[in-house]
């Protein structure tokens, strides 16, 4: 920040003031937060099963594609059917995009980190093609699709602002997943797979089925994020509908230390960061790409934090182990 000649403190205060204090700013923050929240929930879900889903970008875009298709080419449906249908379309498309790496990992043992990454680029290209050719709005200056049907647009969440209902989707998802892991047997199964796949087999849990399920839903949630961007924010499909949400979601999931409440908080933080940064550009002339740098640094710091804690923890538990010979008879 200092490089650009701006005053860092001032910049940060503008950033947070605009994003959290201002009513309109909060709306923007929530809008940024929604896709982050949804995608991060997905990543955390996969993480619980020991899978690292870095394919958020691709899955978001495919989800947007799915939603756009239903939003543009399905007609004559009332809102309360059209909206869920379009969301479902987004979920399915994203789910397939997550399910493929899931299948490859579960059945063929291919590392999901690389497959999800590669599918990102493939997915982006597919969407780019679809927007530029079959689905393009004729006569437009840059490629985008026509506006989706009114019946497929997400309602506004906070009246008077631009915040759309995507955020409610995100919050509901986080709540559902949180209780899944707290009190359901499925959550238990997923955790066993993530913590000790050998013991999972021994317990009669089908490891491959869980991995595929988790990756598909993880992709589906990211797809939902993409759908919400299309249906709530721009009302069209663009070539690029995510400025790196997929990668940010990985950071958020890691930072949240396994809790979905943590995901909500961290998504809020990152959402505020992003919405505030736009203001920064306007007022202080700092290019918005700085947000990537901030993200990277945050991930770094948390990773270091985690590692240090882990070391402290292992030192603690090893000391406990040493004391034990005195405990047992």
């Amino acid at each position, binding site marked *: 920040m200092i490089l650009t000649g701006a005053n860092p403190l001032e910049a940060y205060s503008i950033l947070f003031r605009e994003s959290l204090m201002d009513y309109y700013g909060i709306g923007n923050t929530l809008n940024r937060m929604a896709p982050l929240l949804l995608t991060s929930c997905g990543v955390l879900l996969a993480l619980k099963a020991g899978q690292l889903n870095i394919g958020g970008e691709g899955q978001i875009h495919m989800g947007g594609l799915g939603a756009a298709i239903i939003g543009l080419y399905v007609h004559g449906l009332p809102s309360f059917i059209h909206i869920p249908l379009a969301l479902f379309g987004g979920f399915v498309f994203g789910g397939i995009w997550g399910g493929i790496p899931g299948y490859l990992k579960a059945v063929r043992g291919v590392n999901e980190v690389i497959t999800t990454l590669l599918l990102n680029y493939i997915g982006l290209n597919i969407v780019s093609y679809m927007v530029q050719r079959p689905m393009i709005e004729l006569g437009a200056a840059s490629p985008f699709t026509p506006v989706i049907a009114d019946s497929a647009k997400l309602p506004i969440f906070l009246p008077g602002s631009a915040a759309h209902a995507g955020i409610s989707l995100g919050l509901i998802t986080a709540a559902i997943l949180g209780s899944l892991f707290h*009190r*359901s*047997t*499925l959550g*238990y*199964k997923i*955790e*066993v797979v993530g*913590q*000790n796949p*050998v*013991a999972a*087999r*021994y*317990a*009669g*849990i*089908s490891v491959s089925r869980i991995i595929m399920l988790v990756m598909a839903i993880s992709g589906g949630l990211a797809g939902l994020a993409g759908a919400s961007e299309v249906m709530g924010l721009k009302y069209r499909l663009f070539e690029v509908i995510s400025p790196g949400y997929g990668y940010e979601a990985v950071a958020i999931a890691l930072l949240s230390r396994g809790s979905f409440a943590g995901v909500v908080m961290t998504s809020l933080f990152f959402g505020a960061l992003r919405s505030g940064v736009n203001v920064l550009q306007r007022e202080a002339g700092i290019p918005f790409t700085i947000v990537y740098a901030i993200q990277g640094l945050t991930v770094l710091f948390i990773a270091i934090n985690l590692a240090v804690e882990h070391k402290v923890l292992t030192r603690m*538990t090893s*000391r*406990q*182990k*040493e*004391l*034990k*010979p*005195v*405990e*047992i*008879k």
Partner: protein
Amino acid sequence: MVYLRLKGITKRFGTFVANNAIDLDVNSGEIHAILGENGAGKTTLMNILSGLYQPDGGQIYLQGRPVRFSSSSDAIQHGIGMIHQHFMLVPQLSVTENIILGTEFGSKLNLRQKANEIELMSRNYNLQVDPTAIVGNLPVGTQQRVEILKVLYRGVKVLILDEPTAVLTPSEVESLFIILRQLAATNHTILFISHKLDELLDLCNRVTVLRRGQVAETVVNGSVSKAELAKLMVGRDVLFDLQKPPPNLGTDVLQVRNLHVEDDRHLAAIQGISFGLRAGEILGIAGVDGNGQRELADAIAGLRHITQGTIKLEGVEITHWSAQQRVRQLKIGYIPEDRQKIGLVMSFSISKNLILKTFNQFPFSRHGIFLFSAIQTNTHRSIEQFDIRVTSEQLKVNQLSGGNQQKVVLARELSGNPKLIIAMQPCRGLDVGATEYVQRQLLAERQRGAAILYISTELEEVMMMSDRIAMMYRGQFVDIVDAATTTREEIGLLMTGNRRTNTTTDLVTTSLIETE
């Protein structure tokens, strides 16, 4: 002539004293045993000697001069080398590469020349190895020879062996002893860590017994009996016999016919095993590790695919039932070999581990939702019933000692009154007290009428616990003998694959002759 002297060696880990003012003298050309149970401090002491740890107090003298080792390489340079229980060999590399690892840093590595050097050396020491063989493909006994060659290559005069016979067949043990005696005769000094009394009495000149970090006594071989040694080791009289009541045999529980199972590499691990097991009896399965025991246990528990043959439980054919089915519908208890890797989820709490097999069933859950009060009651009851020593019920399993962890496994597997129990190395890594507990539990189950498969590589254990003993060799049962009437010699013979007959002994397998 005293070659090595330890005076007042002390080592602390936090507030725990692992070694407490230990004095030890070793003469050159001597084979000196260090005896003690798990946790007595033997390995710590040897780690100090071999340079891995630094003592907090005391001094080491080498040929009368005080020395200090800053690292294991430093110790090696002074002529002290350790042969670990888990070999420090890279399986993917060749024998030569492993031996010279860390010694060559020039710009050119002439492997062929080194291989020749090593072959010469191996012949001199009578430690036959093929220098170009890949270590991972070698049998365990040969790998151990590579380990020994590795330290000899670096010119050590003092060899420390940490539980070297744990993974060897009786004939491999004999070979090892011959090698060690030869080395002792050529002025090497041997320190032999073990808890196997019979072996020590066979091999060593003197024995130092460690108990709870201190030297209990140093005795000369021949001046004490085995029972006295055991008493020194444990601090009280140890019963070598659990006083097993005669079996109360019931109906046939398990019927295995012509079982064929493949291992992870799709090679035949079990090649036609048939046996029956009745309620109330313990069938011990003995044999050196790697002859198919794991695959047998897995197959019966449903974790491995059966390529041929049948398994029947109480008359019902369960050959192709999945693990899930077996868990849900049958009452089989499986105590796995590696509790940390297979039996438990280390980061989970005791409660969550206790329901690992039953989480899908009532009363612990209904329609996929957990019923927490039932789970809690179960935990409480298990802790009491199985004497799990914990300060709090909320502890995670990775905070427990090995003995307590095994008790959690037992609590889970035995609490459903299973009809069949498969116990695979159940006492591995446990001290005398915990071992006694596990064995008593299993005997109690036997009284109750469970059919138990007791698989172990520790012969004494198997002989003590079993009613009948099956010797496993290369995927087949060499023979099944009656535990009460068999002898150690007979078992030893069976271990090498020779079936007992009246006049001649014939090898069970017609495949490759075992090379040693």
